């Protein structure tokens, strides 16, 4: 927010009121503009009345003079007062008054000066569009921003002058010795100007329109400002993140920004899942206990409410809306005829579709931002030094944050600087890096093999009976050991490489990611084994249950031979049911997620909070300095946290199809962890030893996320496409494959020609060319983007060169050159350029070339040049009598043109 209202802030305590608080300020303005017309006269009258009273505390002589003055003013007033009701009228009055020569001496003088200024400006017009544009721009801003009544007499006069000037220009533009293009340009500008200000000055009919326009403009600007503020206020946790950033640097903040982004995405997923699947089922589906899949089986009912069972997500949890198994396979539910199975499948696919789209879009946007402002590292420290404090900060807490952020940003720059400077002994470093990478590859390969080995062993163990505790849990133990040791090992090895911490973080992330992939692999493998076992088991149970139902009915008719009607349905709790592998998978993922949350939070509580407490309070009675020495306070582990977040999201993506409630759990998790981690960071951590600046776009995180998304997409799509759904639970029960729902819908609900259309579309003869086309399109777009990139680079280079040249020219060119240019403009043939010009260009080119090479030398040169132009002599011709050859004051917009500092 502070950035946005830069020019509109309030600094009331230096005696300045700006409209940082737009409401009050505008109110003042409004009331002023309402009563503005009458104010001056009233004030003067009042002043006259109270004159005698004032006399006491002021000395006599000036007072008398003033009184005389006032009388004079009062005498002049009557003729103006009658028309003072409206602003424009008042202005007209002002004009009238101004027209009277000698009414006000000072004003007259000013007028004269203005005339001179105006003339000068006219001559200045010869100099080209740049200056005029700026003047018109400024007057525009004046017209927009300033109060009408604040336009003093002098300003108004000058404006009048200018309008006249422009009119004259319009009248005799034909006679100007300019080229057509330029004439047109000037004509347009002049006309715009006249249109604008004739109304303002109360001449012409645009008066009322002008007042209205100004009012609307002001309203509009105010609205925009408010809206901007509102928008900024709507960004959640912005304040928290900024606070963290100011103390811990942008790298830590980047994690929280990532977390916030993740929360936003999950919120959308959550609303999709709950809005289209969970809530319809709860509201319109059959209630709990009505059918077998929605009832806890008889043998489990005793323990179904036990805490330990519930925390394992068995019992009532298992047969709740949180999991796949609960959903019924009715084609439509409720009076709305909501097609729940179809919706279920669509949401499952839509989750992935939306996530992919969002991730890729964000990546593209970040890449866009990243390319934008890579310029200017010329004066980093000087700028930080001279411009970092925000002088409008009036709140002590904000000031503290600002202190911290200035310190942090200095530290960041120091780190960058150190990295830039050390490039000694490149061979050694290269060797070390190769060595480090070799070591890490070895570690990764070793751990991969270890995982493979352990998984194989555990599969063997499954068939054995007498297993010890270790054999049972071997896989988990090995995995968590790897997860613990691996990152530390990588960090130690990474120190060999001596990368900039930002790059080191990326490497670290990539390596741990690779390690964790092994984790994922074992988990999925175990899961698939389980699923396969369940599938086999299911086949048997299916037969058994069919047999059992038959038996039940046979028994019923046998036992009650008199009853000829249909037998009463079985109690749903007694029905034999299949294992429902989907729910098992869902429970597995939910358990994993929940335990992950627990572990993360406990780690923070123990590893950070408790440690900080111990370090802080035991330090008083310990034999060495705990704060500076060994345990010290924890640092925020960026790589670990980011990876935790990414992998957690992978779990959600994979599990969401089988456990719709998982998304809700995840939203809660992200929400709490935002507050919890923010607190933990601020309370128990210390900034990194080398605070470093995060790269602008956290595309690296996004890349990891994309990879995980893709990886988690695979198993889900595989199960949807090729595993048969359970026969007695879930929305797809009874179907051969899950996606049969779509085919069914196409056949039953859509008109038949659409069905045939789909069969055509699904024809491989059509799909293969489509894929080919897409590949070609990708190739084409890729090459186009590369070409653009090259062009961009080229343009950047050119811009840099142009800027240097411009700088040189601005400081260097004397006034005659401008005239030369004008002449040149008139010349019919450009090849007749005067040789002097060419020589000059060459000279300049040389300078431009020198500059980038030897910085010190170039800058020195420039300085001489700027001093030369600051020399008042260069401005000499300006004040002299108007002649056609004299240019306007100064070439640039007042940079090099001012005289040397006076004081």
């Amino acid at each position: 927010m502070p950035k946005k209202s830069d020019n509109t802030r309030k600094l009331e305590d230096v005696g300045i009121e700006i409209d940082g608080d737009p409401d009050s300020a505008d109110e003042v303005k409004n009331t002023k503009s309402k009563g503005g017309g009458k104010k001056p006269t009233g004030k003067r009258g009042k002043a006259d009345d109270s004159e005698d009273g004032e006399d006491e505390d002021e000395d006599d002589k000036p007072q008398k003079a003033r009184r005389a003055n006032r009388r004079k003013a009062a005498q002049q007033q009557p003729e103006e007062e009658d028309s003072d009701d409206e602003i424009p009228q008042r202005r007209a009055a002002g004009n009238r008054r101004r027209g009277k020569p000698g009414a006000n001496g000072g004003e007259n003088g000013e007028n004269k000066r203005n005339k001179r200024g105006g003339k000068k400006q006219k001559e200045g017009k010869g100099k080209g569009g740049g200056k005029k544009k700026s003047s018109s721009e400024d007057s525009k801003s004046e017209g927009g921003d300033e109060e009408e009544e604040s336009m003093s007499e002098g300003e108004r006069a000058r404006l009048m002058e200018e309008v006249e000037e422009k009119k004259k220009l319009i009248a005799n533009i034909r006679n100007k010795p300019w080229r057509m293009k330029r004439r047109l340009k000037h004509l347009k500008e002049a006309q715009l100007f006249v249109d604008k200000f004739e109304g303002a000055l109360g001449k012409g009919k645009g008066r009322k329109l002008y007042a209205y326009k100004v009012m609307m403009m002001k309203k509009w600007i105010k609205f925009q400002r408010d809206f901007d503020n509102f928008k900024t206020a709507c960004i959640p946790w912005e304040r928290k993140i900024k606070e963290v950033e100011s103390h811990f640097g942008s790298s830590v903040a980047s994690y929280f920004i990532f977390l916030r982004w993740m929360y936003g995405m999950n919120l959308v997923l959550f609303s999709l899942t709950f809005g289209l699947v969970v809530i319809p089922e709860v509201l319109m589906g059959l209630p709990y206990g009505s059918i077998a899949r929605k009832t806890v089986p008889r043998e489990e009912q005793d323990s179904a409410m036990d805490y330990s069972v519930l925390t394992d997500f068995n019992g009532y949890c298992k047969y709740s809306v949180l999991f796949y198994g609960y959903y019924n396979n009715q084609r439509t539910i409720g009076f709305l005829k909501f097609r729940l199975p179809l919706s279920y499948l669509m949401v499952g696919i839509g989750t992935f579709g939306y996530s992919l789209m969002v991730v890729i879009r964000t990546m593209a946007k970040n890449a866009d931002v990243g390319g934008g402002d890579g310029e200017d590292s010329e004066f980093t420290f000087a700028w930080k030094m001279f411009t970092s404090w925000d002088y409008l900060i009036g709140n002590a807490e904000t000031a503290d944050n600002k202190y911290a952020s200035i310190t942090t940003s200095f530290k960041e720059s120091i780190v960058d600087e150190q990295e830039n400077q050390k490039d000694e002994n490149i061979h050694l470093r290269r060797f070390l890096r190769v060595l480090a990478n070799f070591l890490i590859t070895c570690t990764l390969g070793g751990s991969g093999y270890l995982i493979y080995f352990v998984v194989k062993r555990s599969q063997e163990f499954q068939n054995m009976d007498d297993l010890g505790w270790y054999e049972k849990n071997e896989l988990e133990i090995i995995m968590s050991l790897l997860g613990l040791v691996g990152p530390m090992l990588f960090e130690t090895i990474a120190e060999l490489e001596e990368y900039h911490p930002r790059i080191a973080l990326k490497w670290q992330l990539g390596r741990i990611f690779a390690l964790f992939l092994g984790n994922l692999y074992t988990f999925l493998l175990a899961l698939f084994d389980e699923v396969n076992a369940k599938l086999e088991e299911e086949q048997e149970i299916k037969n058994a249950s069919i047999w059992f139902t038959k038996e039940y009915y046979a028994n019923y008719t046998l036992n009650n031979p008199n009853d000829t009607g249909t037998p009463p349905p079985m109690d749903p709790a007694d029905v034999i049911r299949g294992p429902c592998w989907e729910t098992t998978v869902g429970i597995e993922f939910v358990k994993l997620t929940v335990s992950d949350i627990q572990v993360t939070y406990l780690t923070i509580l123990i590893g950070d909070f408790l440690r900080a407490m111990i370090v802080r309070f035991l330090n008083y009675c310990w034999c060495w300095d705990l704060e500076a020495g060994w345990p010290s306070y924890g640092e925020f582990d960026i790589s670990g946290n980011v990876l935790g977040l990414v992998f957690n999201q992978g779990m959600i993506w994979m599990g969401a199809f089988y456990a719709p409630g998982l998304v809700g759990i995840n939203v809660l998790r992200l929400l709490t962890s935002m507050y919890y981690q923010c607190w933990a960071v601020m309370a128990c951590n210390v900034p990194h030893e080398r605070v470093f600046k995060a790269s602008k776009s956290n595309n690296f995180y996004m890349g990891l996320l994309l990879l995980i998304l893709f990886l988690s997409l695979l198993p889900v799509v595989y199960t949807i496409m090729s595993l048969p759904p359970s026969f007695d639970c879930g929305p797809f029960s009874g179907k051969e494959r899950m996606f049969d729902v779509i085919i069914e819908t196409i056949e039953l609900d859509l008109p038949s020609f659409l069905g045939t259309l789909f069969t055509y579309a699904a024809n491989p003869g059509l799909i293969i060319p489509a894929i080919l086309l897409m590949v070609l399109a990708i190739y084409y777009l890729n090459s186009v983007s590369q070409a653009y990139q090259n062009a961009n680079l080229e343009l950047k280079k050119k811009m840099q060169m142009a800027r240097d040249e411009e700088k040189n020219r601005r400081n260097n060119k004397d006034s005659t050159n401008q005239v030369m240019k004008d002449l040149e403009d008139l010349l019919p043939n450009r090849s007749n350029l005067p040789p002097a010009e060419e020589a000059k260009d060459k000279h300049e080119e040389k300078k431009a070339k020198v500059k980038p090479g030897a910085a010190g030398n170039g800058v020195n040169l420039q300085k001489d040049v700027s001093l030369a132009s600051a020399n008042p002599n260069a401005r000499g011709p300006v004040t002299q009598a108007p002649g056609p050859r004299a240019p306007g004051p100064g070439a640039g917009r007042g940079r090099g043109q001012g005289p040397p500092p006076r004081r």
Partner: protein
Amino acid sequence: MGSRASSLLREEDIEEIKKETGFSHSQITRLYSRFHSLDKGENGALSREDFQRIPELAINPLGDRIINAFFPEGEDQVNFRGFMRTLAHFRPVEDNEKNKDPTAEPLNSRNNKLLFAFRLYDLDRDDKISRDELLQVLRMMVGVNISDEQLGSIADRTIQEADTNGDMSISFSEFIKVLEKVDVEQKMSIRFLH
């Protein structure tokens, strides 16, 4: 709102201030009432303590420097004229008055704005920002969070970046060059109510 305060102001004073600073009449009266309310001693002049009561200045690390800028050398009182003269540095630049009077540069020109900023850093008023001065200012800005050594290297770097004539200090022209790309006209402007 400023009627009482403005009654204490003489018309000629206003005229003169107007001419000198370019403020409009109503701005001057408004600022005068502000001046008056800051003036706890009721003696028509502000002391340093009066300024230090302003929270923005109290928490600003360079607050003392800013307050200093209000006071002419060797004095510890500033009257309304001086007050206005300092404030005039922050008046937004309007282009149509830039070429009004080429001989006398207005107080709110880019150069004068920069000069004002320069003075904040130039503690001993020798028109040069030396390494020691930078160090002092840095100390004010970052406190004790960065080691002396690093502060020293920051100051060195700053000078190295800005210094072009090799005298190991930053002169005003070098200062201008450093801030060449900063939009000083806009950043060092405050929209005074009219």
